[in-house]
């Protein structure tokens, strides 16, 4: 599947992702500068992305733990925010469009 990625102040790019991996892993392995400081444990929120409205509703539901973390972000948007380490790539999500947030950029 393909993922369209917008990076703040750096424009857009498209990456190839294989199903079974998390979206965070796909971004990381494509060299996208995502912080992901806890490695995917739903514990740091530095893999926070905004999902395009066309795809947001297609994702598996958010867990309570994920919501708790997202709410702590300055860029939380209830209709768009997800932790990319909690979304599993799947061909049904082909074309998934998302944008990295200032809190998820690698420093």
């Amino acid at each position, binding site marked *: 599947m393909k993922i369209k990625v917008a990076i703040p102040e750096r424009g857009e790019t498209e990456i190839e992702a*294989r*199903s*079974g*991996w*998390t979206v965070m*892993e796909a971004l*990381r*392995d494509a060299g996208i500068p995502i912080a*992901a*400081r*806890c*490695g*995917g*444990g739903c*514990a*740091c929120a*530095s893999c926070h992305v905004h999902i395009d409205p066309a795809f947001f509703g297609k994702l598996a539901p958010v867990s309570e*733990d994920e919501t708790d973390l997202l709410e*702590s972000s300055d860029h939380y948007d209830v209709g768009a925010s997800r932790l990319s380490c*909690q979304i*599993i790539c799947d061909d049904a999500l082909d074309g998934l469009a998302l944008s990295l947030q200032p809190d998820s950029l690698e420093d």
Partner: protein
Amino acid sequence: MTDNVAEMAKPLADVPSNVPADRVVDFDIFNPPEIDEIGLHEAWVKLQQSTPHEVVWTPHNEGHWIALRGKRVRAMYRDPDHFSSHVIWLPKSEGLQYGLVPTRLDPPQHTPFREVLNNAIGITVTKEVEPIVREVAVEIIEDLAPRGACNFTEDYAKQFPVRVFLKLLDIPYEDVADVKKWVDQMTRPDGSMSMEEVMENFFRYVDPIIDDRIANPGEDLISRVVNNDIDGRPMTRAEMRGLVSLLLVAGLDTVVNALSFFMEFLARSASHRHELVENPKKIRLAVEELFRRFPVVAEARMVKVDTQVDGVTMKAGDMVCVPTILGGTDDQMNKCPMQVDFNRKDTSHVTFGDGPHICAGQHFARQEARVTIEEWLKRIPEFEIAPGSKIQHKSGIVCTVEDLPLVWKVK
């Protein structure tokens, strides 16, 4: 310390021409200076704090680089084009001999195998099997609680992950002794069997199970591994055996020792215990904080092409130790890193590695730790280290707590 005599007698490597003199340190990753006096993590952090450099070189263990800063370690894990998994254990001559598929493969060869591991033990399965993990934890803890004392490493940490695995593999419980014997030989060989013999015995045992799960696939871990293909072709028997063995061994020593470090800490800190007993909902993020503060793995990468790092040239074929131990404990990654703070925000660590090989069992490991602490504190909220005992740490590829005698009052 008698078994270190042989270690000390090993010759030190000569300093190669690409290593500037100010990068050379005297540090044996299997026996860091002062580990007995100050503890494992403190001994490593002492090395980190002893130099302004991000990478240093030691003549021990055939000579290798060590990355000292968490961000540097993470960057190397994320960069397989320069830092290959072709050899991941030190010393290099030993690392060249062992290693189960796909731990020593780089992308893209690594990728399809990794997908099998993700399917077998990733986020989705982890959530499904939580009740099984909890059942095993409760069983062992309820057996220990009335005794008022235990050696945590032997009586819990070494029992729990093996029993969980037997259930996940859907292997009869009567087999526990056999399986544990082989697994112990794989993770801590005592020389009584050669590695080939251990593996042969183990394969003789799993082969009929693999046959059964191909014929009658179920929901167990072996079924989830063997009924997959690798980029469109069927898996070979050797690959199936390798992946099943990897799942067994990768998730044992690591969990045993992480849990032991966590419990050593909780036994010493009443205030942290109380915080969790009063508010069990905090345990999930507390576990993350404990993984940050107590990483246990120190592996390596092999430099693939000559690469400039922090002002030095690493040559193709050079080994670099990428200690996860210096991730979360680095003051450039986290404020007051040696302090355990269950309310910490922006936790940063590399306890599970990073990049394509990041621990395939990380979600499962977190769950095993969370469930253990939840169920333990419910039954044994107050406990301490048995008076008079000295807790010993050992450093290695997987760092260990040798014994952890705990005592508590029986209700």
